[in-house]
């Protein structure tokens, strides 16, 4: 196993240690915002695996994110009398919901052998259906047990993470999120640096040849899609535990494109790159907006264009050739 690890995996491990140390010296506010930046990482890593490694692009990661968040809210909100159980059941329910949707939808597209370039669009359609549906669920007829779905205004008062009878906020929440994110990252490393990962790469390079080698392409893609959905679901659960709130807006067009952007800027195949890009872009867009800067979108857009164009330019390729192997 260790033989298959790459240098970047050790670098990411170092990064997590760094984050853990950083978390011990900052104040509660900074810890809580850092928790937000890193809780997006599992979703991004899942997409990196799906898109970067196995070549299937999905705009639907936020659908799993949102579905898991809402399910957590419903389950935990109905078990308020025992907060510890509520949190655990909520997490399990959220992840299960994401998994069920992923398997159902993945079966639909992969076993239907939908063309690769159509997958991003159909996943986007799925996301928009879910968002439009949730948007009109205001009112009492949309009540699951004790919990109101809340329509476009969103579901409020979602219970926070609870361990041994105490709710997690601030620094405690930060460490909880960090642990969950590290576990997710380990899971991705395990997948990617294994034979399963090799098959995924083969799939990306040449699906037909992979199939002729005796691999069940459709099953592999479905598996990969499901793992990515689980990771997105984890991010969704962590998000509602952090913010105690979710709206259909988190499944909107803008949000749907964001994970794709993080992964693209992080060079897709590199787990280190994707991790750093996710955190950095979240920090950047927050910095831009908190300064009240109306140019935030322009700067973000320009950054994306540059990030994509630079690798296509000759000098950049030569430069990366000097530095080392091109990712």
């Amino acid at each position, binding site marked *: 196993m260790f033989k298959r690890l790459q240098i970047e995996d050790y670098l990411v491990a170092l990064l997590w240690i760094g984050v853990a140390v950083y978390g011990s010296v900052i104040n509660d506010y900074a810890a809580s915002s850092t928790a937000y930046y890193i809780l997006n990482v599992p979703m991004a890593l899942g997409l990196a695996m799906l898109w970067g490694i196995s070549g299937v692009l999905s705009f639907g990661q936020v659908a799993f994110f949102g579905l898991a968040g809402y399910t957590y809210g419903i389950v935990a909100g109905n078990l308020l009398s025992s907060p510890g159980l509520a949190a655990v059941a909520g997490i399990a329910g959220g992840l299960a919901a994401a998994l069920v949707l992923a398997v159902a939808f993945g079966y639909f597209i992969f076993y239907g052998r939908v063309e690769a370039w159509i997958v991003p669009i159909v996943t986007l359609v799925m996301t928009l259906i879910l968002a439009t549906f949730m948007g*009109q669920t205001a009112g009492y007829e949309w009540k699951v047990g004790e919990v109101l779905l809340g329509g476009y*205004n*969103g579901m409020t008062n979602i219970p926070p993470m609870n361990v041994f009878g105490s709710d997690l906020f601030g620094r405690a929440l930060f460490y909880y999120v960090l642990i969950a994110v590290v576990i997710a990252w380990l899971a991705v490393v395990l997948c990617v640096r294994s034979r399963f990962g090799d098959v995924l790469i083969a799939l990306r390079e040449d699906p037909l040849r992979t199939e002729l080698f005796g691999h069940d392409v459709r099953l592999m893609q479905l598996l990969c899609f499901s793992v990515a959905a689980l990771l997105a679901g984890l991010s969704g659960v962590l998000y509602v535990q952090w913010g105690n709130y979710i709206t259909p807006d988190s499944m909107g067009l803008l949000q749907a494109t964001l994970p794709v952007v993080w992964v693209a800027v992080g060079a897709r195949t590199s787990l280190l790159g994707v991790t750093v890009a996710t955190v950095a872009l979240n920090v950047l867009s927050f910095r831009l907006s*908190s300064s*009240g800067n109306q140019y*935030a*979108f322009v700067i973000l857009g320009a950054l994306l264009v540059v990030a994509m164009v630079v690798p296509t330019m000759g000098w950049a390729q030569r430069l990366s050739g000097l530095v080392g192997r091109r990712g």
Partner: protein
Amino acid sequence: MSDDRKKGDAPVNGVNHSASDSDRGNGDGPELGVSRRDFLKGASVAVAGSMIGGGLLMKGVPAIAAPESKTVNIGFIEDLSGNLAVYGLQKYHAAQLAVAEINQGLTLAGGPVGVGGFASTGSQAGEPPKVRLDTASGEVKVAEQGGGDATSGILYGEDDEILVPSGEKGLLGKEVELTAPDGQSNNRLWQQLARKLIQQDKVDVLVAGFSSAEREAIRPIIDRNKQLYFYTNQYEGGVADEFTFCTGAVCEQQVIPVVQYMVENYGPRGFTIAADYNFGQLTAAWVRAYTPLVGGEIVGEEFVPLSVSQFSQVISKVQAAKPDWVMTLLVGQNQSNYYPQAAAAGLEFPMASTINMAQGYEHLRFNKPSLARMHNAINYMPEIPTARNRAFVKRFFEMFPEDPYLGQMAQNTYFSIHLYAKAARLAGTTDQDAVRRVLESGWTIEAPEGPVFLEPGTHHASHYIRMARADENHDISFVRDWPTVEAWWLQRLGVNLVGRPEHKQYTPQEDKFFPMLQKMAAK
């Protein structure tokens, strides 16, 4: 004086609706409020009186030490970019105007008048003038002079000049500063920004929120941090929150007047087209519940998702229903396309609304006569032809000559910030708990729309409601006034935030009155 806040003390005769000319005036108005309501822990009436009467503001702060900072920091979140920027920028500019005025030593007239507020009756002009906003000069121009006598008198006269000296530059000897990040029309960002403003920047007050989704996103954070918060938008109503003051108009203040007017003037049969989300659904529920009470009925309802921009099918449905009037509760840029499309399809039904024109200035954006026969019960539009409003509009467009409009939520933001400053000045501190208690002493503030009364028990405001009507030239006439319409629904539900703090949003489904009304409608 003991802390009798929780005992629900009886209001003293609220006689002083117009309050004093300035915060440093003779002290009558404010003193009434102070003597009735012990909002400063341990502060004596004498101290409070001298604070106001003598303008000894800095000396009157011993009870609670002010924070170290050299400025009073107003946290302000609106969408300055993205889809909702069209509204956010108006509000941002109105906030900047209010802060600039406070720093110049100006305030809006008004003061605490007691928990009962004031009452008045409506007036109806014989033939009101038609007016039009000229943003270039910042003037409200009269397009056509009205005439005739009013059919009923206004109970009180309005002061023409509402901007008066406050007695100091800034607030409590400090400069007022606006910390205004950009919400980017992105709910997830709103939570982060609220946390930053509250926990890191430690703002003295937070003024934020266009959509209800944005408000609900940050309200849990506000409650956990006990942050003093103003939500200045017109909205669906029902927020009962210890720390939140809702200064915009709500359903009962707008829906009932407009429905009554439409039924009286155009006939009983109404058709509702509403945005398919919380605001549209709840406002439509109000319309459905109240139309029967004034002798009308809703013959059809169509809910439209926010992403829809093509209305030919909705238009066909309205045509088939042949109503006497159409209630349009359409939200956002996509949905405002309904108006030109309906006009082009030859729809000529009178229209009613509680939001359009006053927020997104559809009557200035769309070609004539798309908005002809549109009626909206608003608490503010910049076209209101009163002297005080003309002066306000002039000030605004002098500061922001490029701006296209000055909507109702911008005006609400403007007077809310002034209201905060007045309350903090009276409290003698920016301590949020103290300011909140002062705000709960029954304030009237002279806003550009007219006097606004902040009801302590519900943290909602009464408004001066006017029926605005657009003609074929999109000129506006205000065909009817309701000088004081209270936000009474939460009172009816028994909400009293002073005596019994809550942190929730009520919906009509929790009010047994609504199913009853619907049954009556069914009969």
